[in-house]
């Protein structure tokens, strides 16, 4: 049987030359993403904004959004957002956080349940009070920083500080671009988005580490090879793996995106963008070439431990 060969053997792409394009491109994209974040903002979901979210299914026939809207608007609960999704009898109701603390949120649920009565099935009801929402947000931000910090420390121990720094720049770049994507697409930003961001972080690093591992190995073996040439060789040698792994992850994500249902849709869409689009690009075009500028040392201990010396092939 002839096997599928996606990436031919012995590719010799000059990835490092692309840094003259990829670095400015990434800088512009990052600035754009940050600008978007500040001026367009994220579509904070109920987890971080507090309030009420109800998913209801009408019992008799398709939902009449107009009449539901007028019923609910009459309750004096501020802005009521209704949205149809999935089948015509599924309606998502969002009501902003009520002033007056936690008890007010509960009062609002009772009112909505009273108004909709038994005409609908309640598929999902979520009520998040003001205190919980602000805590969840700060946990999310702290968790993000903690993860980056822990990974940085690990890489510092395992490699050298230049690698750790390079990986972190690549990382922050991924997260910034993904946040930009969330802002443009106005995907719900909730707890699962934090999970998505952290997973993107993990996977993107996974990829970066694989390339860095190869770079380290080559640094030990080819002591005199110029840095750009060495980096190119490392990326080219791992290219087949990078492409195949991203294809398998994309296949898994595609299945989740198509069949995983509404509840994890924003999660998978974010992952698709972060892991597949940004992650791969970053490892090859940012994480590797940035080592040229960070001055990876060749004489340092980490690279010349005798037991790590490669035997002659």
């Amino acid at each position: 049987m002839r096997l599928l060969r996606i990436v031919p053997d012995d590719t010799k792409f000059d990835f490092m030359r692309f840094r003259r394009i990829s670095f400015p491109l990434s800088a512009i994209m990052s600035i754009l993403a940050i600008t978007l974040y500040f001026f367009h903002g994220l579509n904070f979901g109920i987890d971080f904004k507090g309030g009420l979210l109800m998913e209801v299914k009408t019992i008799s026939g398709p939902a009449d959004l107009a009449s539901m809207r007028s019923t609910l608007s009459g309750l004096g609960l501020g802005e009521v957002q209704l949205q149809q999704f999935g089948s015509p009898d599924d309606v998502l109701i969002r009501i902003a956080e009520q002033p007056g603390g936690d008890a007010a949120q509960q009062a609002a649920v009772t009112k909505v349940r009273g108004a909709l009565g038994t005409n609908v099935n309640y598929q999902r009801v979520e009520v998040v009070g003001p205190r919980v929402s602000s805590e969840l947000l700060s946990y999310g931000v702290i968790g993000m920083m903690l993860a980056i910090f822990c990974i940085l420390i690990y890489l510092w121990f395992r490699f050298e500080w230049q690698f750790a720094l390079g990986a972190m720049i690549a990382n922050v770049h991924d997260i910034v671009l993904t946040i930009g994507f969330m802002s443009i697409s106005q995907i719900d930003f909730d707890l699962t988005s934090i999970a998505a961001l952290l997973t993107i972080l993990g996977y993107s690093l996974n990829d970066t580490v694989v390339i860095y591992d190869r770079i380290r190995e080559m640094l030990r073996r080819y002591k005199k090879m110029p840095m750009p040439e060495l980096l190119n060789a490392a990326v080219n040698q791992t290219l087949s793996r990078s492409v195949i792994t991203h294809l398998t992850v994309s296949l898994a994500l595609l299945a989740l995106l198509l069949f995983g249902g509404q509840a994890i849709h924003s999660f998978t869409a974010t992952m698709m963008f972060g892991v597949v689009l940004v992650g791969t690009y970053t490892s090859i075009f940012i994480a590797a070439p940035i080592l040229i500028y960070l001055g990876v040392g060749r004489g340092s201990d980490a690279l010349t431990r005798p037991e790590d010396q490669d035997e002659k092939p």
Partner: protein
Amino acid sequence: MLYFTRWKAAAIILTALVVCLCAVPNFLPTATVEAWPKWAQRHLVLGLDLQGGSHILLEVDTKTVRKDMLETLRDDVRRVLRDARIGYTGLVVRGNGVEVRIREGANAAQAREKLNSLSQPLGGILSATGQRNLEITNDGDLYRLTLTEPAIVERVRQSVDQSIQIIERRVNELGTVEPLIQREGSDRVLVQVPGLQDPTRLKELLGKTAKLDFRMVDTNVSPEQAQQGALPPEDELLHGAGKQSNQLYVIEKRVLVSGADLTDAQPGFDPRTSEPIVSFRFNTSGARKFAEATQANVGKPFAIVLDNEVISAPVIREPILGGSGQISGNFTVQSANDLAILLRAGALPAPLTIIEERTVGPGLGADSIAAGKMSSYVGAAMVVLFMFVTYGLFGLFANLAVAVNVAMIFGVLSLLNATLTLPGIAGIVLTVGMAVDSNVLIYERIREEARAGRTPINAIDAGFSRALATILDSNITTFIAAAVLFYIGTGPVRGFAVTLGIGIITTVFTAFTVTRLMVAYWVRRWRPQRVPL
């Protein structure tokens, strides 16, 4: 790298097999599994997002706890000073403490000593720290007793513990399956009730403090007079409960008998009017107190007060000596039943506020399970096919390793009695996508080594040994992210972190052992002349 001793190979196969077998109880009918010994019954728990149910996060009202502590302290100060016949003025609660001015001429040293007797070392887990519940300072004859922060924290902690017990009793009365009630942080209680569709009744049961008092109605002052400012200091003005909330009562603050003295409460019907009622029985001391109070007050009305609302205010027609009675007060069958539950379970030490509620209906849960299954099958099928097309025989090895991997994930999750959520399923699907990465790394490395001129066996050996270091490095970074996510996440997100983390461990395990064993066996058996990659 390709040589395994017989024992090592056996140990690897045995480990994988045992862990995989742990997943078996999940796929058998519950009845079959229940006949097994307890240790074999461990299985996955479906998260509320998959099986439907209610998640309610409650917070103990710290302000009320603090207020109660301060009022008790004020009463204590009054008691010790009175008992010692020390004159005082201006006994007030101020800020976090109580202030009192000792009258001139009183014995200052004795006053100080009496007040000091109120300061106790903290009990419980804080007893070793030597901290006390009060700080006493004085400025001349003005004494200030301040509650220390650890004392308040300790009391809040106790309140949460008591609340958990009472909530358990209340929730169990609903007859639900395996409710989960646990402490969250210092002042919160998490209640999860699987399968509950409409949490309204649960919330009503949780939201009530259920502090029941029997007190006298003050007939000397009418509610109208009281509203105009003629309320005596020993009385308070209370509303009626429910529909009678417009009705006002002047009720004595003094409690004749409290709900703590109840031993039982049952819903029932009044034989004459067939209205729903709640009948109750006091313990011995409650019965005695109630008998004394009713004997002394025949012909006067007394009030049954629940959470500072008057349920009813009947007139005492004759002394009630038997220690039992009944409450009637415009109940429905349901509300009488609920009140009986609340009275049996006891009063909460402080009010609880619902700060988060998430309820998933069973329909949506079933949809999510179906979506999870569908995406898992499709995702796995695509990855398996892709691996076979790309790597042929070695692709089959990889697929077999992934199958073992997924079975092991289920096994470990079952061993831990972990909760499977929809994001958790997503975590497993992602693991399938990522697990083959370890095989990809190994195979690509083998190809490289073979192209560099090594013999097939040599190339395979070198490929494994070099790729495994990379696999370990790259997976540890993802594992750190999963660990952080587990730490900060709740509910479904935590479920994702669990499967992701376990998936990483099993992936590394299968890459190091199962895949290697398969390839090693194949190499020994067929002595390949070239690498089939």
